[in-house]
Structure formats: structure tokens, C-alpha cells
């Protein structure tokens, strides 16, 4: 008799992210509640956004032609988007001419399949990654994990997030919700499970923590056969890809492995090499508030004898062509992911990135996410409302995306969509309202009723109320109707009011 070995309970290769799907994030006003109560998070965020804001303001004021740069950035990105097919074909031709292999992916699933197949073909069980928004968007790490490949984030903050079984809360400083002692704990507990352990006597000094990350990752860089990156820009007329970074982990991933796979959203294209002079001024000053980021890497396909000798570029759509179809909404595709709009946003500063239920948080997330994913889920329908429309984001955006205008536009789209799905509800509310307001006597009766309510409740503000008033009153105090309505006051006060005629107001109307 033969016995079949029971399959091992599957052991993960990398730390598990928190359970649940981003799409299942409750709608914004509800999800905000979870984070507003976290005073550590709020203090960290206030400090971080405040500091970066001040640095950004200082270094953008240094350039006398900052406004011209922003206008040029806007125009170049508009030019690209409006002729994206032409530029993508040019880009592909130049990449191929320089020895790169180009793949096109319509969806996240397709992009993941392409990358998994390429990695599997190399026979490796581990890859090193440069921080990339699009690979987070398509959840590539989990796809690789499922295929038996460990994907290691090498950006310090992303490593903290990954080892902490966590999600990024900011696109530029993803671990800003963690403080130094938490980082120390995470490193001590987790590093030893996946490679070189953190020193036992690790302090919580940032230089020591960075040193532990350097040692832990150096081992992985040295043996990595496959690197995975995104790109900040892809140049159509030369086939050059650009990665902007600070720590050198990007250079490691782009240089040491034998195979490099770059996964890039199609909107990252710019027409010419010369255009980079605009964006390489706009991006660092807007994002970290530095005159220049420590390292920028540019490479064009394969360079014989230097760096990876097998180079792949995966061009990802995943909803971008849908965004392109809306002439107003497509402006969001200009985004260069600098995070300036987040740092300036009063809503973001208080709730942090997790509440947005998307890898793209803050003002840009509020306009981009519902366009990329559609507005079927509760969180996506509520995102365009996650703003007070104060307009600060549009003023700092280096590519002049009119975010408030797009928020209003997206609200309109959400409402239109809802009307299509539930044509009855809104019409009924409007009908009832119309009936009440259609005759003065009916309106007066309702007003009186409301005034009585105040007497019964004995307060002058209403807190959260049951549905259908809940969406409004959960986030705002509603003043109670006055004890005396305007119309009553008008009537009663006429004796000592010189402006009031003897005629009752109601009958004065035509």
C-alpha cells in the first residue's frame, strides 16, 4: 500500500500583507473614522506633511521660471496623452532596436502573468524590486508569491511596510505612520525569518536602522538574478527609461541582476529626451522638496557589458485607456506621482493614506482611482467627495492638474451613474420636495413641525441621525430648525418693522 504525502500547509515566502482587499475598504467617511482616532498616525502625518510642504515651497520659490516649467510640463504631458498611440509605437520600436523585449498588458492579471512567466523562465525563486506604484496597483508581489517567487521590496520604507505586514500610507514616505521604535521591533522580529537578521543590540536610531536594512538587503542584491522596477519616465524618441530615487536601492536593482523587468503604465511616456529637462526639475522639487534627488538612472535597452543583459518592458493599460476616453478626466493621467497634492491636503493630513482604499491616496487618488477602477464599489463612489475643494492641491501640482475641477466632474459622474442604476429614488425625493415647496401653506406646516421638534429635543444641534440623513449628519452637526420660522417671525414682527408691508408675505407672491 502506498501513502500519498499530505501537501505541506503552504508557508509564505514573504510576510503576508494585511488581510482584505483594498476594494472592500468601506466608503470614505466611514473608513476615515478608523484613522482619525489614531493620534500617533495623525502626529506623524502632521509632522511629515508639514516638513515636506515647507521644503517644497522653499525650493520651488528658488526658480524664477517655476510657472513656465509647470506650463511646459502640462503641455508636454497633454501632447503625449493626445497622441499616445503614436508615441507608444515609437517607444516600442526604439526599445526593440536597443535590445529590449516589449510586452503589452491590457489588465493587471495579464501584466502579472507576463512577469510571472518571465521570472519562472529564469528558474529563480526570488526577485528584488524597486519601489513602483504600478506594481502595487496590479498587486504583483502577491501574484509572484502565489507562483512560488519571493518578491523583495528594497526601498527602506517599503521594506518596513513589507516586513510589518502592512500597507503603504503615503506614496513618497510609505512608512510614515510608523515611528522608530516600531521599525526597530519589526526589524528585530522579521528580518531573521527572511535573511540576514538585524543585530540583536539594534538601537532605534534612524542611522542604525538604515544600517540594518543595508546589511539585510545587500545579501539579496548580491545574489539576485532578476530585478523588477517601474519607471518615472519612458522616452519615446530614444527608448530610454528613467528611475528617480534616493537610496541607491534602485541603482542596485537596475544594475546587478542579469535580467531586468520594468513594469510601466503607458501614461509614463514623454516624447523626447529633451523633455526630461522639464520633468527632472519639476519632480524632485515637488516631491521631496530637494533641488535634486540623490540618484537618477537612465538606461536604453541593453548595454553590452554593463548591467542586465536581458531587459524587458511591460507596458500596462489596466484602465488607463478608459481614463483617456474622458476629455476632462484624462488630465489625471498627467500625474508624475510627486505627492505634493497629498502633502498640502488638509483632509489627507488628518486621515492618512490608508483611508483612501487605494494605492493612490490623497487628492490625486480621489480623482484617479475611481476612473481606473470604475465607480462600482462604495469606496470608489465616495472618493470624489473626500475633499473640501479648497484648491490647494491644484496650486502645487507640477503638471497643473485642476484637481478640484476633476473632483466635481467625478462627483457628477458618480451621481449620473447612480441615477442610471436607481432611477426612482432621486426622482421620488425631488417630487416630495417639489410638492411641499409648491404651496406656501404646505411649506409653512412643515416648518412649524420642524420648530416643534426643537422644543421636544431641547438642544440646538443634531449629531448623527438615522438614514437617510446619516451620510450628511455623521460628519457634520446639523443646527436644529429655529423655534420660530422666518415666516412666523415676518408676520409677528411686521408692526415694528418699517420694511414690512401690511400684506401677508404669502399672498404677496404672484
Amino acid at each position: 500500500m502506498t501513502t500519498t504525502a499530505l501537501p505541506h500547509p503552504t508557508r509564505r515566502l514573504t510576510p503576508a500583507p494585511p488581510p482584505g482587499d483594498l476594494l472592500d475598504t468601506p466608503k470614505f467617511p466611514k473608513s476615515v473614522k478608523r484613522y482619525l482616532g489614531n493620534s500617533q498616525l495623525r502626529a506623524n502625518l502632521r509632522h511629515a506633511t508639514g516638513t515636506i510642504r515647507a521644503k517644497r515651497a522653499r525650493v520651488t520659490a528658488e526658480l524664477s521660471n517655476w510657472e513656465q516649467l509647470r506650463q511646459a510640463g502640462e503641455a508636454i504631458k497633454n501632447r503625449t496623452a493626445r497622441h499616445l498611440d503614436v508615441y507608444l509605437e515609437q517607444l516600442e520600436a526604439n526599445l526593440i532596436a536597443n535590445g529590449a523585449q516589449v510586452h503589452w498588458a491590457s489588465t493587471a492579471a495579464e501584466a502579472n502573468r507576463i512577469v510571472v512567466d518571465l521570472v519562472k523562465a529564469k528558474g529563480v525563486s526570488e526577485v528584488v524590486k524597486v519601489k513602483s506604484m504600478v506594481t502595487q496597483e496590479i498587486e504583483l508581489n502577491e501574484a509572484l508569491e502565489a507562483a512560488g517567487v519571493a518578491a523583495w521590496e528594497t526601498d527602506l520604507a517599503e521594506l518596513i511596510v513589507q516586513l510589518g505586514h502592512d500597507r503603504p500610507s503615503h506614496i513618497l514616505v510609505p512608512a510614515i505612520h510608523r515611528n522608530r521604535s516600531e521599525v526597530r521591533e519589526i526589524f528585530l522580529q522579521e528580518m531573521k525569518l527572511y535573511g540576514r537578521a538585524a543585530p540583536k543590540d539594534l538601537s532605534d536610531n534612524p542611522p542604525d536602522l538604515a544600517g540594518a536594512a543595508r546589511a539585510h538587503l545587500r545579501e539579496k542584491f548580491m545574489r539576485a538574478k532578476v530585478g523588477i522596477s517601474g519607471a518615472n519616465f519612458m522616452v519615446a524618441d530614444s527608448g530610454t527609461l528613467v528611475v528617480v530615487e534616493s537610496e541607491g536601492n534602485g541603482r542596485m536593482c537596475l544594475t546587478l541582476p542579469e535580467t531586468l523587468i520594468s513594469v510601466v503604465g503607458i501614461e509614463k511616456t514623454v516624447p523626447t529626451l529633451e523633455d526630461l529637462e522639464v520633468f527632472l526639475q519639476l519632480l524632485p522639487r515637488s516631491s521631496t522638496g530637494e533641488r535634486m534627488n540623490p540618484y537618477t538612472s537612465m538606461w536604453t535597452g541593453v548595454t553590452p557589458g554593463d548591467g542586465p543583459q536581458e531587459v524587458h518592458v511591460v507596458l500596462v493599460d489596466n484602465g488607463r485607456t478608459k481614463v483617456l476616453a474622458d476629455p476632462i478626466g484624462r488630465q489625471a493621467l498627467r500625474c508624475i506621482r510627486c505627492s505634493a497634492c497629498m502633502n498640502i491636503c488638509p483632509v489627507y493630513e488628518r486621515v492618512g493614506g490608508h483611508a483612501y482604499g487605494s494605492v493612490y491616496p490623497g487628492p490625486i487618488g480621489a480623482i484617479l482611482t475611481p476612473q481606473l477602477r470604475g465607480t462600482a464599489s462604495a469606496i470608489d463612489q465616495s472618493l470624489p467627495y473626500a475633499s473640501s475643494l479648497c484648491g490647494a492641491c491644484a496650486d502645487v501640482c507640477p503638471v497643473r492638474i485642476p484637481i478640484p475641477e476633476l473632483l466635481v466632474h467625478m462627483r457628477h459622474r458618480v451621481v449620473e451613474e447612480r441615477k442610471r442604476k436607481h432611477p426612482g429614488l432621486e426622482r421620488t425625493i425631488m417630487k416630495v420636495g417639489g410638492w411641499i415647496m409648491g404651496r406656501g401653506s404646505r411649506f409653512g406646516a412643515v416648518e412649524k413641525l420642524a420648530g416643534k421638534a426643537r422644543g421636544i429635543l431641547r438642544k440646538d444641534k443634531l449629531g448623527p441621525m438615522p438614514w437617510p440623513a446619516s451620510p450628511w449628519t455623521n460628519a457634520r452637526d446639523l443646527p436644529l430648525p429655529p423655534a420660530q420660522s422666518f415666516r412666523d417671525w415676518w408676520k409677528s414682527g411686521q408692526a415694528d418693522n418699517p420694511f414690512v408691508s401690511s400684506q401677508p408675505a404669502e399672498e404677496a407672491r404672484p
Partner: protein
Amino acid sequence: MSKSDILARIRNSLIDVTQDDPVLDVPVDWQYGQATAVAEPIELFIERVIDYKATVVRAASEKDVPRLVAEGLAQAQATSLVVPAGVDPAWVAQAAQAGVELVQDDPPLSHQRLNEISAVITASVVGMAETGTIALDHRGDQGRRELSLVPDMHVCVIRTDQIVTDVPQAMARLAPSLRQHQPVTWISGPSATSDIELSRVEGVHGPRTLHVIVVG
């Protein structure tokens, strides 16, 4: 085929675009490649590189380079130095006399071997004053990218005639290299991170010491 699907979707989404020429369709009001108003580019360059916590020394002429290289390495207690094939042997002669082991990249060094070497020396192609940035295009006197990445100290030699005002002028100088498929690396100080409580730490994965010698 996803390629044709994506291109078809793009074309469908852009039916409102009627002008076929991108340049006519969206004019870009920008003068490319211009110098910016910087009074003393060399002084500003040095100031800005120091701002990034790199060390900068000045050589009156090429003749001073060997001494400054040797002194820089001694200060950092570097015991071995990678020398790309195109680097002028005179630059490293004095360091060698002082006992620094010179390592050639021929045959190409393994990652592991490179990881054991304390420093690398390279020339450079452009310096940007406004931002304190140095660009390499990794030709002979700079070596392949890995050489200036893995060792913990980077000694970088730049001539004053290579220093331009700002990013646009630098891009104009670098475009020909990029069009010839050379990789290009921009370096603004040693690697750095602000990921933990936003406190700046110099030196994460790239060389933790950047030592710049300005010649001329």
C-alpha cells in the same frame, strides 16, 4: 493581441483629437537647453555638492589630482580602489605608492569581489551647478554602472569646463550619449533616506562617502 487592443482603445478614446501632428496640436512654450542665470557656476556647484554632505576638494590643475586622490583615500581609510580601464593611471599612482591596492575591472569583477573593495575612482561628464548634480555616462574613464555603486566610497573627478548652470544645459550635453545607448547616472550627494520619521540618514545602499575633486 493586447498590443493591438490597447492601441485600438487609445484611438477610440481620442476621437476628439483631430489634429494629427502632436507638435501642432499641443504647442509647448519652452526654450530647451538654455543656460540659467547663475553668476558663478563653479562656486555654486561646489557649495551645492557640499550641501549634500559630500566632500569637495579643488585641484588647481591635473597635476594636483594624484595627491588629492591619495589624501582622500587615506582620510577615509580606504585600502583598495577599483580603477576603470579609461582612468588616467597618473591619478592613482600616489595612492598606490601609499599602499592602496589598485584593482582593475578586467576581467569584469564579480559582485562579491566588488563588494570587498573599499573605493572606486571615476571621471564624469557633466556637473550641474544649480542642483549640485554630477552625471556619468559610464564610458571608459567611468566604468560600468556597478563599479561606482557597490564600493562604499566614490572618488569622482570633474573638470571645471564640465560644469554647466542647470539641468537643461546638462540634458543637452547628455542627449548624444543617451542616443548612443549609453546608460547615464545622476548623482547628487551620497545616497540618503528620510524614511524613518523623516530624519535624514546619509548613506543607505549606494556609496556612503562621495569625494569630489574639482579640477581647474
